[in-house]
Each structure stands twice: as C-alpha cells, then as structure tokens.
C-alpha cells in the first residue's frame, strides 16, 4: 500500500505527540508557578494551552485515518481526538468568556479517563510482551489515576496540589511516549512474536 510505504513509523508519531504533551506540561507548570492572575495578564497566553490541546486533538484525526492496523486502534485514536478537542474547546470557551462554570474542567478529567481507558483497551498484549505494550499499560493507568487532578480542580479551582499534579502528569506521559519503540525489550523481556528488537 502506497500510504503505508511513505507514512512515518508509529514510534515517530508517538515522539511527536510526546513533544506536544511536553509543551502542555510546561505551560501548565508555568501557570501553576505564577498563578492564574499573572498568567492571564497577556490575553494571548490564556489561549496557549487550550489551543495546544485542541490542536493535538485535531492532529489525532490523521493518525486515526492513516494508522489503520486494527479497528480498535482506530476507535482508540478517534476517541482521543474527540476528548482532546472537547477538553481544549471547553477551556477555549472558558478563557474567551463564553463559558463560565468551573465545572468545565471536568472535560479534562473525562479526557484523561477516556484516553487512559483507550490505551488499556487497545493494547492486546501483556505488560512484558515488548516495550510498546508495557508503555501502553503504564500510560493507561497513569492517565486513569491522574484524572483525579482535574476532578479536584473542578471542585477546588485554586488547589496548588491538583494543578501541580495535573502538570506533572503531562511530563510523565511525555517521558513514557518518548521511551516508545515499535519493537524493543522492556526490563530484559521481549516476546519472540514482537519482531526484531531495537535499542
């Protein structure tokens, strides 16, 4: 298939999304350090992270359309695209002043929960099949547990612990995505069915 011949490898796409998620983590961390009032002093800055999140959601659509190695991969990528766009869009509405409720932050909790579940559901192999499988399980559980941070933020918007936890989640996810290889060993384990191992 022509598209399969010219499209980048899945691991590369993971690294690109890791970079986008690292950017998100930096923006969340900076906002947590300076506080929402200082962060909002320049109008363009308020749109940065909701816009980045929305953009990452948009970019997941071509991933869904092009990486069609299984139906469940398409469903997982499609669901990530939708929840990231919903979360980014809701936050864009909040910073624009069109939406007012603090509970719109629940869309971020939903995004983490759905993303985590999709990671776990679409990984068909066990933890130690290969590094990619391990990372899918680790990412899934990280995101599900981390959904508690935006949940707390929806109830207590000024919670420093919740904001820091939310920011740190994105750093952890970025590191895990950067670690991904299409076929590589994990802690000395590598299934004979997982292809040729890379470093």
């Amino acid at each position, binding site marked *: 298939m022509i598209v399969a011949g010219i499209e*980048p*490898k899945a691991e*590369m796409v993971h*690294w*690109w999304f*890791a*970079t986008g998620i*690292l*950017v998100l983590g*930096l*923006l969340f*961390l*900076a906002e947590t*350090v*300076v506080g929402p*009032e*200082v*962060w909002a*002093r*320049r109008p363009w*800055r308020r749109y*940065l992270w909701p816009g980045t999140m929305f953009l990452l959601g948009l970019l997941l659509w071509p991933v869904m359309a092009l990486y069609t190695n299984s139906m469940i991969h398409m469903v997982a990528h499609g669901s990530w695209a939708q929840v990231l766009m919903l979360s980014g869009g809701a936050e864009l509405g909040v910073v624009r002043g069109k939406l007012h409720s603090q509970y719109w932050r629940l869309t971020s909790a939903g995004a983490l929960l759905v993303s985590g579940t999709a990671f776990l559901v679409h990984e068909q192999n066990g933890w130690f099949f290969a590094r990619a499988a391990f990372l899918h399980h680790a990412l899934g559980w990280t995101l599900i547990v981390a959904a508690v941070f935006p949940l707390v933020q929806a109830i207590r918007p000024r919670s420093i612990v919740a904001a820091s936890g939310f920011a740190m989640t994105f750093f952890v996810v970025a590191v895990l995505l*950067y670690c991904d290889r299409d076929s590589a060993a994990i802690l000395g384990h590598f299934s004979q069915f997982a292809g040729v191992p890379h*470093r």
Partner: protein
Amino acid sequence: MSADIAHDLHGEREKERVATAATSARVRIVLAIGPAVAGAGVVWAFVQPWRLTVLNPHGQGFWWLIAEPPLYVVLVGVLFRVLIARALVQDLEDAGR
C-alpha cells in the same frame, strides 16, 4: 512616632519583604524551567546517542532524519525560555510592584 504606627510600618515592610521574596523565587523557577528541560534533552542525547539519527545520517529516509527526540526536548526548552518565560517574568515583576 507612636509605637502603634511604628509597629504597623514594620508589619507592612515585613509583608513587602515576604511578597518580594516569593516573587523572586517564582521568577527564578520560571527562568530555570526552560534551561532544565533543554539540559535534560542534552543529557538524553549523550546517554542514548543512537536516538539521534543525524549523528549517522547515511542511508536514512526522510522521516528518520527529522525524528530526533532529544533535539525536540532541547528545542522545547529553548523556545519556552525565549517565547514564554521572558514575558512571564516581566508580568510577575510588574504584579509584584
């Protein structure tokens, strides 16, 4: 000057001192984030040089030549420092005055 006024002035100065210290700590953190991330990317490049295709580019395809994860990390750190941190520190200092 009565003792009450002197006490109030002392209290205000103490509050200002605490606020200034908090602001300068935040400024230092904001200024350190970008270089810390860029530094992490540099360390990664040294620890896992095989993740940089550009070090051995012969025979590599287009995607492998632009897939350089440690360089992405360095770039993100540098861009954060230049595009975000600078303006943020300015606003922090303005807010602290």
